[in-house]
């Protein structure tokens, strides 16, 4: 019996590894296989996936629903923009480090206020604090550019060794070299988050999610761990914001506004917050869905709304949460 279980476990691990390698290979070949527009969309999708991974550390693993993650995404993006405006920097590594640090500090400050609360109180406090950041970006126009936002030119990569050549098409740069930069950071983030959620720390977060009182009575310092989870979550989302801004070329207060937080929630609900890869798939699918809905109709928000309603009614576990067990059953039957 145990031999059979071991064999089926190895088969499953092997199957997962094969699928993982196939997907990684596909992602590497995307710029060669797909037109630039599709590569650009996938870049956006991978960046949103990083934000969703961070967000899901809170929702899926710690049981805290945040309506304020737009703040971290926006802080990451604005940090890069402000480094361009005030220091004339163009190094993507400087943007990444500063963006991650700034969003970590923001998350730490938010956490100092919010983690003593749970459920709707946590969600609303996060929403309120994120709107403070939005209003600052909106009102301090001499610093942030107000509604006009701040432009971010194409950065240099890998310490300046990779840059946009003179006369080179920016789209080519973004859909090749910058795409691979995003892909590399995406894979690092997926790996890092996988280790975090499967570490003793990740188990402690899951314990807090399942039963806060008992977690406290086995010696887990609940508030402290929630705070750390929020800082890690905010850092991932902030990093996504930093990666997003060169692709978009501009950052405006819109990404700090509450509907963007709702969008991050949508990524995770769409993919399934009870699974590790659900948020990743949800972010990529949502980006395509939104792009094509905008192209298809002026009532695109309605389309997304209907999708969300149908999703919650028919697939409450999300795409991965619903489809993965079906595939597993088919494999077992086969």
């Amino acid at each position, binding site marked *: 019996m145990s031999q059979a279980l071991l064999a089926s476990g190895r088969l499953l691990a092997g199957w997962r590894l094969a699928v993982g390698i196939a997907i990684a290979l596909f992602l590497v070949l995307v710029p060669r296989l797909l037109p630039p527009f599709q590569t650009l969309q996938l870049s956006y999708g991978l960046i949103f996936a990083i934000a969703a991974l961070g967000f899901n550390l809170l929702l899926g693993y710690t049981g805290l629903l945040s309506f304020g993650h737009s703040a971290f995404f926006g802080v990451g993006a604005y940090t890069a923009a402000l480094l361009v405006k005030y220091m004339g920097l163009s190094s993507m590594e400087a943007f990444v480090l500063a963006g991650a640090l700034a969003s970590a500090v923001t998350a730490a400050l938010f956490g100092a206020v919010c983690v003593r609360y749970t459920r709707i109180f946590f969600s609303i406090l996060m929403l309120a604090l994120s709107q403070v950041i939005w209003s600052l970006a909106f009102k301090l126009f001499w610093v942030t550019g107000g509604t006009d936002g701040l432009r971010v030119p194409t950065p240099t990569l890998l310490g300046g060794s990779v840059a946009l050549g003179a006369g080179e098409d920016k789209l080519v740069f973004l859909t090749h070299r910058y795409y691979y930069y995003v892909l590399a950071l995406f894979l690092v983030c997926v790996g890092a988050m996988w*280790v*975090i959620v*499967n*570490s*003793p*720390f*990740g*188990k*402690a977060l*899951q*314990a807090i*999610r*399942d*039963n806060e*009182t*008992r*977690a*406290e*009575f*086995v*010696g*887990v*310092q609940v508030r402290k*761990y929630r705070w750390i989870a929020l800082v*890690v979550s905010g850092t991932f989302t902030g990093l996504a914001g930093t990666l997003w801004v060169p692709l978009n070329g501009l950052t405006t207060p819109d990404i700090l506004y509450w509907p963007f937080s709702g969008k991050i929630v949508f990524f995770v609900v769409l993919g399934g917050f009870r699974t590790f890869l659900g948020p990743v798939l949800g972010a990529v699918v949502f980006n395509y869905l939104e792009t094509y809905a905008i192209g298809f109709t002026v009532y695109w928000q309605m389309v997304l709304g209907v999708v969300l309603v149908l999703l919650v009614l028919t697939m409450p576990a999300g795409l991965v949460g619903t489809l993965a067990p079906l595939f597993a059953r088919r494999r077992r039957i086969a």
Partner: protein
Amino acid sequence: MALLETTRVRKWFGDTHAVDDVDFVVNQGELLGLIGSNGAGKTTLVNLISGLLRPDAGRIVFDGADVTRQSVHERIREGIARSFQLVNLFDQMTVQDNVALTIFAREGKTRRMTALAERDRAVLDEAGEVLQRFGLESKARMLAGGLAQGERKLLDVAVAYALRPKLLFLDEPTSGVSTREKAPIMDIVTSIVRTGGITAVVIEHDMDVVFTYSDRIVAMHEGTILADGTPEEIRRNERVTTTLIGTTEAG
């Protein structure tokens, strides 16, 4: 020798005197039965000692240290652990992970976020030993939420036991399980107390269980201590038999 001593501990909820100036002693190495009707103040007393509630007045001394103002976390470090009246588990985690997490927390390893939990052989081996001790090793890979009630009760105790406490409070470890399952659960509890050098306080409503397994029994009524003695003394105590057991001749 007293391991735990409360002095005039008080907790009132408005007009309800849940625990009213209680002096309560637990001696090293004993298995103490804490009995009383519903609302007698047993669980509130345990909540005060374990840190879930703060007393309005009084002092709690554990192993020579005043723990009255200490947090739950600090009291666990001192060696106080508990299980709950309503089973409190991590239902979406496996049985093994329920125990392993407790060991990680005890060892201060839950701060680690750059190492995989499943690679820590020492913790997993210890978790396996704990589960074996409680007869749950075959359920290690199951989700805790999928266990039968008796198994959940056992896992609840196993999780507290994995903290390696000096003093273990078990709040109704056999409530909600069939009569047939009560004896095996209590046999295991007694075994880990006797062989593990643990002192235990068992809150129970089942008088057969209390009188069979306890070294000493404390009876509570309306927030105060009604009686304190050996099972034989409590059985003969008229106040206890009329107030709690409902007959003048305890069975």
